[in-house]
């Protein structure tokens, strides 16, 4: 099992969600996040006061998938979330030791 954490542009959420569903991923968690990578923020002015806003709104998608569909899932996110500009986001993948379904104590890949 693998965990995919994808940080994407908020405007790409619907496209990525649909692409993941089409790739056979059934469950995911969406978080509203703020952050920045190499992308620079922007400046705001309120009555002459200047504020640099470097933490920009992002969406973080978390989903745990079986090893065999990992590549397909990553491809789906890449295709749906890419605009080619700075600020498109990142994907992080890590190994998951165990998954447990709370309802019936089911364990392993079938629980995800």
């Amino acid at each position, binding site marked *: 099992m693998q965990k995919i954490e994808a940080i994407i542009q908020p405007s790409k959420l619907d496209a990525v969600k649909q692409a993941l569903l089409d790739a056979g991923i059934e469950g995911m968690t969406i978080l509203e996040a703020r952050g920045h990578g190499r992308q620079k923020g922007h400046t705001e002015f*309120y*009555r002459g006061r200047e*504020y640099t806003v470097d933490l920009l709104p992002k969406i973080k998608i978390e989903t745990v998938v079986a090893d065999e569909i990992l590549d397909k899932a990553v491809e789906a996110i890449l295709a749906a979330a890419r605009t080619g500009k700075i600020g498109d986001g990142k994907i992080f993948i890590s190994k998951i030791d165990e998954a447990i379904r709370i309802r019936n104590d089911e364990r392993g890949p079938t629980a995800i």
Partner: protein
Amino acid sequence: MRPRTVKLSLLATLSFLFCGLPAFAQSSPPATTTQIAQLQSQIANAQMSADNAWMLISAALVLLMTGPGLALFYGGLVRRKNVLSIMMQSFAMMCIITVVWAFFGYSLAFSSGTPFIGGLQHAFLRGVGLQPNPSYGATIPAQSYMIYQLMFAIITPAVITGAFAERMKFHSMALFLTLWSIFVYSPLAHMVWGKGGFLSASLGGAFPCLDFAGGTVVEIASGISALVCALYLGKRIGYPKEPMTPHSLVLSFTGACLLWVGWLGFNAGSAFSAGPLATSAFVNTQFAAASAAILWAACEWIHRGKPSALGAVSGAVAGLVAITPAAGFVQPMPALLIGTVAGITCYFMVVKVKFWFGYDDSLDAFGVHGIGGTIGALLTGVFASSAINPIFKSASGATLPSGVIEGNWHQLINQFVGVAIAWGISIVGTLIILKVVDLTIGLRVTPEHEDEGLDITQHGEEGYDFAS
């Protein structure tokens, strides 16, 4: 206004009589004195109904300026943790000043007394009934005049709350502004608008200062007192290093638009009649707000590359402030010009001067109301036109020139005296009252409470509950 009212009613009576003449000639007996008196009283009643309708609507419009107008405008500009506290301060003025006004406030402003403060004849509204008071709105019930003036007395201290936003204890604010209303607002209102007031233009003042709807009484008084508060209380913790962005410009935008709408009643209602003078004030108000908004936004556009929504609505408020003293005295084109000057100058004060000096006039009550009011009061002396409002009469009843454009340079001196007195009483009065409150119950919340936010620490609630 008053002589015209009498003339109008006479004219109406006469034309009515002439229309009826052929009928009298054929069958009826000639009109008797009692019939004429009856007709005159009917005409007077009709005029009172018309004027009173506009005055009650105007009074409601002015109340609309404080809550929701000012409450939303200020509410959006503070940080999320203080939104309720600043709204509650405006609302508290709606309640507290109403009671103070009924007890002493109205009497101190509008009873006859010395040139500087009224007496206590009208305390507890004694003698303020449904018959007109000839000095204050000859064609409306005295209570209409009283309640309309109350709405002004409410919004003036509410404007000051913008200067000490996010850091003053609620009960200190309530005590301070109650005392301020009694010892600064009422005397100044008496001087400018009260019978025999030192600055009264139409009721026998020594220095007749033209102030149609409160450029000195409301705007300078609140704006200058705001600056004194900002300096006395000191900056908010973290200002100007930490970001203190407005938490909801949507609220501020809505509030500013409500202020604009309400201001039409604030200025046009100050004609105390529904006649042509109200139209003049209404038109001028609209023009000045628009031109000031355009100029503020244009300054930003040139200076920062983008016209902001907050800038545009702030400009509109600056224009409304500046036209307040002039609304019923000037022609429409000078009104546009007054708005233009106010838009540019207030922009400069708020965006540049505040940062040069480093004071924390948190919501710019001084930069917009103090400066806009001063500009408006002085320019009223320049552009006042006797064609709009023949306020100065010679002993023989002839109309005298009003402002500098009509050759009355002396009026500019009167306006300066009015401005100087308004600045003076605001600075001295506010300083003394702040000191008294500071020494008795203190002014600022503790640093911990300021950090946590005034909504929780002063009121025990939050403006937005994102968990429910």
